[in-house]
C-alpha cells in the first residue's frame, strides 16, 4: 500500500482577465471565454519562477504531511520552465525544504505531465522500500506567444505531494500510463515560446492518450466510471475535461471540483495536481478519485485514489486551493508584460 501522505499547492497572487488581453489583440472577450472556458489566469511576480513556487508548494506539502523533511529521500521536480537548462531545480528545493544532504533528487520534463510521473517514481521507490518518503512536485510558469491563443491560458502554479506508506491521507490503489511519440506541442532550445499543432493537439494527442490511459487503468483494476466519485483530467482549457469525461462515461458533476483552470489558467505540470488537490480539500474518506494527466509529446498517467480517514485531521491545518485561487490582485496588460518579461529589452 502506498499513497499520499500530504500535499500542498502554490498559486501566485496576480491575475489577468481574458478581457484585458482581448482588448490588446482586438478579439471578443466573450467568444474567448466561452470557447476556452477560461475567465482569468495567474501571473507570477517578477521574482517568482518554477523553483520558488516549487519550494512554497513543497513546504506546504511537508507541513500538511507532518513529516520530518530529513526523512524524505527522493525529490522529483517536473516542469517545462525550469530556471536553469543545466542545474537541477530539485537540489534547490531539497535545500530549501530542509531535506539535504541524504537524498536523491532529479528534474523531470514531459510537458504538462512531469508532475504526475514524479508521483509514479516516488511510488516505485516507496513500494520497494528504497525510501521512506518521496516528494513529487509539478511546477510551471508557462509562456504564451503574444497574440497566440495560448496567451489566454498559460498560467503559473505549483503542487507538491509527499508520497509514502505511512500516515497516508489517500491510498493510490493503482497507476497506468499510455505513451507514444506524438508531436502536438514542442519548444526547441533557445526559443522563447513553444509551437503547437493547433487542432492536432486535440484528438490524436490529448483525447487519445487521456482516454486510453483512463480506460486501461479501470480495466486493470476492474473498475467502472460509476465506481468513482470524482474525476480530474488535465485541463489545458476549461472545455477538454468535460469532453473527455463524456467520452469515458463520467457525469459532468464529477469533474467540477477538480477543474481549476477557468480561474487560474493552465498551470502545465501543476495542472492535474492542483485539480487533485482541490478535490482532496473536500473529499470524504472512502471516496474514489480518478486522475489522468496529459503531457504533450505525448503521454498520460492515470491514477485511482481512495481517500482515507486521516485526511480529516490533517486537512484542518492547511490553506485550501480555493484560498489561493481567491487571494488575488489584478494586473493590466502593461504590468502583465513587465511581469512576464515579454519585451525584448527586458
Amino acid at each position: 500500500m502506498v499513497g499520499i501522505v500530504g500535499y500542498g499547492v502554490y498559486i501566485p497572487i496576480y491575475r489577468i482577465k481574458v478581457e484585458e488581453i482581448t482588448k490588446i489583440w482586438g478579439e471578443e472577450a466573450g467568444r474567448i471565454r466561452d470557447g476556452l472556458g477560461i475567465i482569468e489566469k495567474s501571473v507570477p511576480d517578477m521574482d517568482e519562477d518554477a523553483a520558488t513556487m516549487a519550494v512554497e508548494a513543497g513546504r506546504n506539502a511537508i507541513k500538511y504531511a507532518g513529516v520530518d523533511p530529513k526523512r524524505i529521500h527522493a525529490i522529483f521536480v517536473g516542469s517545462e520552465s525550469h530556471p536553469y537548462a543545466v542545474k537541477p531545480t530539485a537540489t534547490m528545493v531539497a535545500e530549501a525544504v530542509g531535506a539535504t544532504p541524504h537524498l536523491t533528487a532529479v528534474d523531470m520534463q514531459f510537458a504538462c505531465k512531469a508532475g504526475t510521473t514524479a508521483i509514479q517514481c516516488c511510488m516505485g521507490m516507496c513500494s520497494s522500500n528504497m525510501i521512506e518518503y518521496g516528494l513529487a512536485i509539478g511546477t510551471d510558469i508557462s509562456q504564451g506567444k503574444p497574440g497566440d491563443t495560448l496567451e489566454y491560458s498559460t498560467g503559473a502554479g505549483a503542487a507538491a505531494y509527499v508520497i509514502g506508506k505511512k500516515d497516508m491521507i489517500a491510498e493510490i490503489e493503482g497507476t497506468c500510463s499510455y505513451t507514444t511519440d506524438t508531436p502536438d506541442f514542442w519548444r526547441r532550445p533557445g526559443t522563447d515560446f513553444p509551437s503547437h499543432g493547433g487542432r492536432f493537439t486535440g484528438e490524436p494527442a490529448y483525447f487519445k492518450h487521456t482516454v486510453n490511459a483512463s480506460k486501461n487503468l479501470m480495466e486493470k483494476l476492474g473498475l467502472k466510471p460509476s465506481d468513482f466519485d470524482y474525476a480530474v483530467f488535465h485541463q489545458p482549457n476549461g472545455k477538454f475535461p468535460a469532453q473527455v469525461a463524456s467520452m469515458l462515461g463520467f457525469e459532468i458533476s464529477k469533474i467540477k471540483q477538480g477543474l481549476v483552470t477557468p480561474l487560474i489558467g493552465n498551470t502545465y505540470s501543476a495542472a492535474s495536481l492542483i485539480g487533485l488537490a482541490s478535490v482532496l480539500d473536500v473529499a470524504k474518506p472512502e471516496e474514489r478519485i480518478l486522475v489522468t494527466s496529459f503531457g504533450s509529446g505525448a503521454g498520460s498517467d492515470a491514477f485511482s485514489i481512495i481517500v482515507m480517514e486521516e485526511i480529516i485531521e490533517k486537512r484542518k491545518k492547511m490553506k485550501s486551493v480555493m484560498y489561493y485561487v481567491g487571494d488575488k490582485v489584478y494586473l493590466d496588460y502593461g504590468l502583465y508584460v513587465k511581469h512576464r518579461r515579454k519585451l525584448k529589452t527586458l
Partner: protein
Amino acid sequence: MVTIGTPMSWRRIPERYGLIGSECEICKANFFPARKICPNCRRRGRTKPIRYSGKGKIYSYSVIYSPPTGFELEAPYIIAIVELDEGPRLTSQMDDCDLRDVKIGVPVEMVFRKIQEDGKEGLIHYGFKFKIAK
C-alpha cells in the same frame, strides 16, 4: 550591480533559504545571520545553529524608487527591516502587498523568492523575502 562571488553566495544558502541563524548556549541570545562569536560572551560563548520560524513584524520600511543596478525591473519595491518573533532583525524586500497596508508593527511571514541574478547567463540567487501575514 553587487556582484557576489559564487562561493560567497553558496556559503549563505542555509541562512537565505532556511533562515538559519545562531543561538548562544551560554547567554541564550539569538542572532541572524549566523555568528561564530557571540558578541556578548565572546570567548566564553558557544553558538549553535537555530532555524527561525519566518514570522515577524515590520520594524521600519522604505519604498525604493531609485534602484541599484540589477533591480531596475522591480522598482519601485519595498525594503523593510523585519523583526523576527524570536528577536533578531534583518533587512529584506516585501512582496505581494499593497503599499497602503505596509505599516510599522504589521505581522509578516517569510516567502521564498529570487533575490537577484547575475545577468542572463549567471547564477540566480534565491532566498527569503516577506509578505504581510494573513
